[in-house]
């Protein structure tokens, strides 16, 4: 007996993600899914971002996906914000069901922005919808100028691409034109911010982007 199915394999994950998305819409919370390779600067970016947002009275929380340790979570807890750690014990990405679980430990009535620091990896996190408003792809220059072409799904799905560690451009063979050319082909409309988070470069533009996203969330009723 043959049965026609015609359904997305990840439909269960996507259904849950859409439930979370409506919940976030109702609560007017912006959720950003931050995706990058290990070591490209996700945690550092958040360490720089949180105080700047706090200074503007935004209430922030972080859901931290980590393969093994709580080191990143510890770094972020120093800022006095809720940090929910999900250790995936080897799994390469977060799924919507883990985010739903993390929500249980957050007071959603007292938040404006949730950052999800996904597991460091450019393939799997792009595949799994977690109910976010925007995927932000963070690429650091030492990783090479060919990453956009090699991981097209992520860069196509991203609403914003941050090129981090641009202060190192003078020392490494990263051709910005290659990066820009690939991105123009894969995702012509995507916003790009060049940044050196450690050096406080490009943070203002990033904060402006976040603020615009938050106010858009309040406008859609």
């Amino acid at each position: 007996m043959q049965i026609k199915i015609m359904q997305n394999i990840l439909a269960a994950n996507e259904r849950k993600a859409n439930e979370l998305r409506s919940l976030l819409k109702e609560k007017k919370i912006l959720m950003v899914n931050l995706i990058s390779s290990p070591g490209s600067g996700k945690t550092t970016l958040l360490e720089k971002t949180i105080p700047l947002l706090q200074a503007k009275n935004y209430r922030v929380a972080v859901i931290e996906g980590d393969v093994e340790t709580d080191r990143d979570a510890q770094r972020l807890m120093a800022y006095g914000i809720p940090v929910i750690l999900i250790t995936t014990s080897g799994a390469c990405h977060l799924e919507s069901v883990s985010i739903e679980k993390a929500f249980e430990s957050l007071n959603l009535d007292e938040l404006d922005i949730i950052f999800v620091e996904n597991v460091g990896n450019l393939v799997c996190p792009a595949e799994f919808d977690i109910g976010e408003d925007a995927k932000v792809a963070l690429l650091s220059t030492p990783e090479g100028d060919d990453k956009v072409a090699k991981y097209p799904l992520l860069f196509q799905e991203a609403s914003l691409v941050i090129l981090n560690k641009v202060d190192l451009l003078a020392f490494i063979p990263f051709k910005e034109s290659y990066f820009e050319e690939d991105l123009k082909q894969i995702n012509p409309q995507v916003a790009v911010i060049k940044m050196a988070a450690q050096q406080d470069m490009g943070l203002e533009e990033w904060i402006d982007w976040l603020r615009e996203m938050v106010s858009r969330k309040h406008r859609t009723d």
Partner: protein
Amino acid sequence: MHELGVAQSLLDYLEKAAKEHHLKKIKSVTLKIGKMRQIVPETLVFLFQTLAEGTIAEQAQLQIELLPVRVHCLQCNQTADLPPRKYSCPHCGNSSLEWVSGKELIIDHIEGDPIDAN
């Protein structure tokens, strides 16, 4: 290794579908997967077989049809398959493209033995 998450989701779905359609055994599963998904078919099959041990899909053959990254160019109006890591129209070089295929991750159909009516 996103194949693991995909294999687990597939198995979860099959167990549900078997109940729904009153199957005692799933014999084959046909998937359509776009090449943009960067799924390695051998890896998916291996993980699926490992996870399916002891389930209703234990002996299911996984058939995977890979779909090309196919676009329709909004400039020259032609349809073309893109070579790896190229995202502009092979005919005119434009990058205003509509995606025809390449991002699918679909269970097309399954085959199974129904539970005998008695």
